[in-house]
């Protein structure tokens, strides 16, 4: 079809690579997303405390990570943490190997990047919280922590869901850049395959389709979650 040659797909070795790549991509995305969300919540909580120096530091962190390329962040992380970083002795070969693998570096870098985005998203979610609700919580005697956890988070997270979906899909797509620092995820294996088969066009088209399908599934899942969590009547016509 269209003169494209997909005969290489029949080779079980390449199939294996593709599957491994997808699994590693999913792992990387899931891990960095989880940490990113954690960072996001902590950061948003920190911002809600209205301590000026904490605000400043968090803002500094967020702006640096939002306004620099994630690829460069990963290269930097890989270089400093891996090449220049902590080394340990490999018991088998007796050689010095970096303590943090490329995967770990990518994870750390992506978590911080995603965390910065998440802080921004959760912050705007908390900001749109009507004062009336916080006041009601206080007058009912809730402590600050309880108020945050039991009242504000459940409401704010509904508002944040669309932005959160954006961040998660963004992180997922950005994992492809980890291939540049030799993390064995899908894009990396794509490179390996077309270096082997020279079928660059076919490989890239397939990879593109696989990514789009995976991201679409993620998007769809998030929209189902959004629908499930929707508070009837809230947010409409406010």
């Amino acid at each position, binding site marked *: 079809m269209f003169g494209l040659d997909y005969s290489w797909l029949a080779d079980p070795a390449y199939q294996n690579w593709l599957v491994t790549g997808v699994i590693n991509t999913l792992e990387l995305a899931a891990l960095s997303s989880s940490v990113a969300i954690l960072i996001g919540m902590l950061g948003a909580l920190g911002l809600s405390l209205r301590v000026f120096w904490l605000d400043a530091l968090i803002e500094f962190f967020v702006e640096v990570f939002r306004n620099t390329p994630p690829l460069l962040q990963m290269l930097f992380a890989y270089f400093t943490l891996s090449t220049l970083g902590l080394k340990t002795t490999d018991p088998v070969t007796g050689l010095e190997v970096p303590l943090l693998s490329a995967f770990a570096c990518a994870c750390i870098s992506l978590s911080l990047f995603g965390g910065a985005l998440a802080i921004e998203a959760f912050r705007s979610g908390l900001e749109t919280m009507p004062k009336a609700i916080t006041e009601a919580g206080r007058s009912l005697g809730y402590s600050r922590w309880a108020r945050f956890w039991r009242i504000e988070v459940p409401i704010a997270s509904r508002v944040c869901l669309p932005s959160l979906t954006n961040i998660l899909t963004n992180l997922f797509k950005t994992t492809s850049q980890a291939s540049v620092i030799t993390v064995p995820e899908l*894009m990396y294996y794509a490179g390996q395959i077309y270096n082997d088969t020279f079928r660059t066009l076919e490989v890239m088209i397939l990879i593109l389709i696989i990514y789009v399908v995976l991201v679409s599934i993620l998007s769809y899942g998030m929209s189902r979650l959004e629908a499930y969590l929707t508070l009837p009547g809230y947010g409409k016509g406010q």
Partner: protein
Amino acid sequence: MNMTFELSYEGKKRLVIGGVLAAIAAWIAVDAMAGGAEHWGRVFVRLPLLLTGQGDGWPITGGFALNILLSIASMAVATVLGTLLGISTLAQSPYLRLPAFFIMNFLRNSPWLVLLFAMLFILPFQVEVFGLRIPFPPFVKAVIGLALPTAANLSEVVRGAVQSIHSGQWEAARALGYTTPQIYRHVILPQALRRMIPGWMNLYALLTIATALATVTGIQDVLTILNTSLAMESERVLVYFYLTTLFLFFAYCYPIAIFARRLERAVKGDNI
């Protein structure tokens, strides 16, 4: 004489950020004195190369200047494509609207890097139009590769802006006898334009950050030069090179992002 030094909350925050920057500057100074100065010297020597692709700083053939050029060219293409795509998603006819939605979602769900690679291989290295041979150098492929996802995002901004215009404008225009293309041209787009600008600027900042990916196409952008420079420098120096490059991107994109946010606030009360 009672001097009260009351700072607002914002003021205190800015003071702390100033403090952090000062601390960073101090750290750099201390490190410089401990031998880091030599490394910064290497960076300084290479700086023109990083910025323009030439050791002397002129003519501009690469470096960060190429990234900026790439972002401008790509944004221009994306603006045209994105506006057309956005209007198509609002079309009455499903034959126009559904394919437009499909294309937009496909592009939005694709990783930027993968799209860039795909464009590298899908686009031919030259096209023949009317007997004229137009070469497609890697730069052009990078322009297109980055423009596509930006256009998809822009089409959403356009769609949002057009939909935010009160339906009464449509009614009045139709009652006066305007056809749909006329309504877009004379009534809707002039008003929607103002609301699109913050989103457009945000996308430009995103696009500029994404130009870092263009290094995979082989063009002499700042990352490519960074990598080739690294081969010639010692390991220790590289950290300083990375920091400098990170700073270049930050220095360019941060002001744009701030400006876009300010515009967003200004446009917010615009709903008539």
